[in-house]
């Protein structure tokens, strides 16, 4: 017998020993699809979208008094990297964007079949430049300029939104809401805040019979959105009804249990991802009336956190993997022309040609999930490490140890 024959026999013997696939395998597969979408939106919802190239004016919250302070007072525009830190302890920043916060996800089991995907946040302390745990918040959105954050308390959906002064660490205003809020996102100029309302906690997860993984509760309980003026705290609510097939995971109207709204860069429209539909996103005007996709938003991809570039001319795209083992596309917002760029997953624009991304290390054995933050640039094959590697959570969807998710904001 030679090695090939032995190999032939060994493989057959091993295959014969495999137990059959368990019952309900099809349902588990369908659950995988849904869970994956939930994961994608989870990071999108928390990551403050992209950055604007110019210094913008952001209302500084000071006992309710409107004082407009230019965020451009932050003078350092260089790169602050801590390649040995994971999760980071000291400020990470590049160009116009900074890691304003990060959170650690944790699937907290309520029973064998019910759990809640909770987040523990660490916010940047403006005085020390270090990240400090903020255990009282379940959701945090940081405004451009990093002077203000909008926060929700632990119970979701929340009945009030806090506006936190990041220089003092104190809530300077509570905005009471009639419709429970569970998602927050600032506009790109920092003057408006979009709050997504839900009838239940969108981070609740269930484990269906025969499935080995958690999936978001379906159908989604999303009800609509508020748009608030940050300076005055005033705003109004608009209802957005779910499509008839919203709970059919193969249906065009399906949405994730958490599928938050945000404002387009120009502040004219509200939009949200549509994981199954052909277009991949939906748009509304500020009163909640459905709109067709605006021409300049054709290539916007909700599942790629970096979204559109500061100038609006480029859009961060999905995984490429052609020129490099891990790489992504940057898409021309007008023509759709794709350019390959380093980086496994594009997270935030540092300027019009440079992005912060997740990427894995070198070597064929690198796991997809053993990633660090890096700086990548269009037209360059180089990347600059910004953080240490976060741990690979392996195949266990319940294991989030060593995982952290970045929240970027313009600085």
């Amino acid at each position, binding site marked *: 017998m030679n090695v090939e024959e032995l190999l032939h026999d060994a493989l057959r013997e091993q295959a014969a020993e495999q137990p059959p696939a368990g019952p309900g395998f099809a349902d588990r597969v369908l659950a995988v699809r849904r869970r994956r979408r939930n994961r994608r939106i989870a990071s999108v919802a928390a990551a403050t979208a992209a950055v604007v190239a110019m210094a913008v004016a952001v209302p500084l919250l000071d006992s309710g008094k409107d004082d407009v302070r230019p965020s451009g007072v932050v003078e350092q525009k260089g790169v602050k990297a801590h390649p040995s830190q994971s999760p980071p302890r000291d400020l990470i920043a590049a160009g116009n964007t900074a890691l304003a916060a990060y959170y650690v996800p944790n699937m907290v089991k309520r029973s064998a079949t019910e759990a809640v995907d909770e987040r523990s946040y660490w916010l940047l302390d403006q005085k020390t430049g270090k990240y400090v745990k903020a255990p009282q918040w379940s959701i945090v959105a940081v405004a451009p300029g990093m002077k203000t954050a909008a926060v929700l308390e632990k119970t979701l959906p929340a009945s009030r939104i806090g506006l936190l002064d990041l220089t003092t660490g104190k809530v300077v205003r509570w905005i009471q809401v009639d419709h429970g809020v569970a998602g927050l996102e600032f506009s790109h100029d920092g003057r408006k805040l979009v709050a997504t309302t839900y009838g239940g906690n969108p981070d609740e997860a269930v484990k269906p019979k025969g499935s080995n993984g958690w999936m978001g509760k379906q159908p989604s309980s999303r009800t609509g959105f508020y748009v608030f003026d940050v300076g005055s705290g005033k705003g109004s609510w608009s209802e957005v009804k779910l499509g008839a097939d919203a709970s059919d995971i193969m249906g065009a109207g399906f949405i994730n249990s958490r599928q938050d709204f945000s404002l387009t860069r120009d502040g004219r429209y509200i939009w949200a991802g549509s994981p199954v539909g052909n277009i991949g996103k939906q748009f509304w005007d500020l009163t909640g009336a459905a709109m067709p996709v605006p021409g300049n938003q054709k290539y916007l991809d909700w599942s790629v956190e970096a979204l559109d570039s500061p100038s609006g001319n480029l859009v961060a795209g999905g995984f490429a993997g052609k020129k490099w083992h891990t790489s992504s596309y940057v898409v021309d917002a007008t023509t759709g022309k794709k350019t390959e760029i380093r980086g496994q997953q594009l997270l935030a624009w540092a300027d019009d040609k440079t992005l912060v991304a997740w990427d894995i290390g070198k070597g064929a054995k690198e*796991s997809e999930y053993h990633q660090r933050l890096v700086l990548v640039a269009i037209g360059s094959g180089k990347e600059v490490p910004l953080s240490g590697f976060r741990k690979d959570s392996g195949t266990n969807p319940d294991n989030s140890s060593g995982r952290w998710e970045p929240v970027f904001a313009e600085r």
Partner: protein
Amino acid sequence: MNAEGLESFRDFVDNRSSALLKTAVLLCGGDLYAGEDLLQNALAKAAGRWQRIDEPEAYVRRILYRQQVSRWRLKWRRREVSVAEPPEAGAGADAAAAAELRLVMRQALSRLTARQRTVLVLRYFEDLPEADVARLLGCSVGTVRSTTHRSLARLRVLAPELAALGLADVELQPSRDYSPVEVRP
């Protein structure tokens, strides 16, 4: 996917997932959980375009192989590979020695790279000719041939027992012809 598509997808998974799982587990070096994960991923991808697929099994298998060789996409972690207990002595010295060799082979297989293992599984488990393997993996026949050669050599390095048990001269022995149709790259 409409109700009809969903039903056809469930039928396919119910009927074919056990066979597909065998291949997936072999591709993952004997790790049942990683194999299930690999298959789940492949089926989830196929589900996304189920009603546009003409030959579901061929389609799912192609995703399986390709996913496995571009491993960064997978939620994968290397695990200790558990293998069946060696048979009790007394079953016959030859049979025991042969069974032991197969276990040694399994362990060596689990230590190959995903790409090396995939090529070997396609050639020696699925019994596919080199040209078919090349088509499935999207590479040249020459690459399949050189990867096969290097993978077999690597197995012998990883499992010195194979050499110790008199297989060191395997290179000199005629190999089985799994490639009746020769296609030039």
